[in-house]
């Protein structure tokens, strides 16, 4: 990876927007990695929670948006519960998802969900899944 850092990156409007809708401040994060260490799904993420926040600090909007991380986050709040700085990566991921979903772009097509799953899964899985993946 190679970044060219410009003043515009540091003042990224995208990042400011995410901070605004999530109420989080990416600068609070001092990159200790506790969130990534405790996150049950960071192994599946292109970038773990703390790296996503680092990329936000560096104003790397694309890298943040291209990563699968936001879709993998299960919202378990483990990151937040142990963050020494009180940062919630979970909230940040929700904000990132919201930005996509609010544009009307779905991450998961309902048709693609197999019938047995639709029938067998508890309703709450569907409701929650739709909230997280469907606009």
């Amino acid at each position, binding site marked *: 990876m190679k970044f060219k850092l410009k003043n515009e990156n540091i003042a990224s409007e995208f990042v400011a927007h995410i901070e605004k809708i999530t109420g989080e401040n990416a600068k609070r994060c*001092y*990159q*200790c*990695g*506790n*969130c*990534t*260490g*405790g*996150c049950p799904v*960071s*192994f599946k993420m292109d*970038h*773990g929670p*703390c*790296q996503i926040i*680092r990329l936000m600090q560096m104003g790397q909007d694309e890298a943040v948006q291209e990563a699968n991380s936001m879709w993998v986050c299960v919202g378990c709040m*483990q990151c937040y519960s*142990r*963050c*020494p*700085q*009180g940062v919630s990566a979970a909230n940040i991921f929700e904000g990132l998802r919201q930005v996509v979903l609010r544009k009307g772009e779905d991450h998961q097509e309902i048709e693609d969900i197999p019938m047995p799953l639709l029938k067998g899964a508890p309703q709450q899985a569907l409701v929650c899944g739709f909230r997280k993946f469907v606009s």
Partner: protein
Amino acid sequence: MPRIGVFVCQCGNNIASTVDTAKVAEEMKDMPGVVYTADYKFMCSSPGQESLKETVKEHKLDGIVVAACSPHMHEKTFRKACEKAGLNPYKCEIANIREQCSWVHHDETKKTGTIKSIDLTRMTLERLKRNKDLTKISIPITKRALVIGGGVAGIQAALDIADGGRDVILVEKEPSLGGNMAKLSETFPTMDCSQCIMTPKMVEVELHDRITLYTYSEVEKVDGYIGNFTVTIRKKARFVDEDLCTGCGDCWNKCPFKIDSEFEHGLTKRKVIYTPFPQAVPNIPVIDKENCPKIQKDKCGACALVCGPECIDFTQEDKIVTEDVGAIVIATGFDLMKNSKFAEYGYGKYKDVINGLQFERLASASGPTAGEIQRPSDGKVPQSIVFIQCVGSRNEEKGVSYCSKICCMYTAKHTMLYKHKVHDGQSYVFYMDIRAGGKRYEEFTRKAIEEDGAMYLRGRVSRVYEKNGKLVVQGADTLSGSQVVIEADMVVLATALVSRDNAADLAQKLGVGYDKHKFFSEYHPKLKPVETVTGGIYLAGTCVGPMDIPESVSMGSAAASKVQALFSADMLDREPITAEVAEATCNACWDCVTACPYTAIDRTEIKNRKGEVVSMVARVNKGLCTGCGTCVAACRSKTIDLAGYTDEQVYAALNAF
């Protein structure tokens, strides 16, 4: 008619950029009583002071106003200059036209700043006209010092003061001297054995002719003021006669009851009658009253049966002693934060998760394993140890916001000790930053990594749990951007250094400040690092904040030299800004006595020639009075006034506004 001179300072551009100093001087010229005015670039410079002195003499001035920076900065300078020129120093007043004037006004036409400066200077001038000649108060000094806390900082302070020829009272709350340093195995960065360098100092204290040592004792009350403190000390009952005991150890060998050892942090047991560790100073045991069945319910008494010199006395009671001292050094040290706050690391739940001081004990030749690194759970030698730094430090959510400063170094030390003792063992260190600022410190941590093979991982640990007899450590390495899981045999937490539980209490007894973390506050963090706001009370070591041994020792010596400096004069000069009672109008209502926060006002009897008491009046103890003025506000008959700040002076200033 007074003959007053007004000097207006430009302070380079600090004042002159927003205040027209020439205009201020010009305006003052016509004020009644003013015979001389000037403005000058730097009044505080030597030429500035010289010209002030000469002008005082030449114009036979009987008072001066310097319109310049805050009196905190240079009041002393200008008053001294006046004194040299033969003028009473209290006839010099400062009008502060910088901090709350030139610095806060940004009007480029200089209009607001100039008007305000003129007002301030005029007010000061009117005040000055009512100033009286005052003379410094001289008070005697008791040339003995009290040191509270017998860790390395307190020991250093006590020895330095005593070696300088002054008597020292050293009060230590534990049964032995030594503090935390006595628990350490080897010390960074030189790796010398802690006990080997510490115990000689402890013995030196014990044998020093000029040091009176009170162990197992605490300061109960402090009265008085700089040069003249009276300290009340509680000597807790040891239940052992200190004069008779030879320290033979028959008693603790015989005692059948075992309790977790505080000194060994629970890694082993001690007896109910015990000395905390073999090299304890003094080598005299104490009976732990709470756990002694003889004292609690009159059962046992085995120790008394075997004691040759018959020095055990189960009926002993606490003793209260008072000592007069002229100066006090606080050196009460630190504690480790309770790890129970961090359930995710399993301290207390898993025996093999320990803290740094426990590791020190395991590595110490005099420790419970005679220096062999063994797991507390099963005594096996661990093949891998994970060290977690910043546990509680730099953690605003659950711990403290500050950095504990020494853990980076002692963790590196721990990895080395481990490697030196268990050659095929592997250590892992989770760290956030390696803070190794200090002489030979960076080289030390590099050595741990490069030569002793410690694996450093940059990240925090999220969780520790047990699986098949191993401790699974789940953390991150942010440099590689990955989650890291390590199955270790032992985990060592570098827990935050915190203030002592009773620090706030002690601070209140002594009338000194403390910060939000209950560390004692220095008078000035840079320029007066060992002084407190209370005259005659000094600080040393980790009771001020986290620091290592070299720093604690330096502070101990620094505090000692402050005490020596204080003791080098026979009398102590104090500012004469004190309350004064006009006894004729005092109606003995004692409102002032109740109001005074320093108990500086006495109820005094007035007697006639026959020695009969004819009336009572309030009288101020000049030694204790700090000039705070509370009594002046409380006095309904306007009998008390504050020298240098009389009502007359203050009203004159206000009227001139």
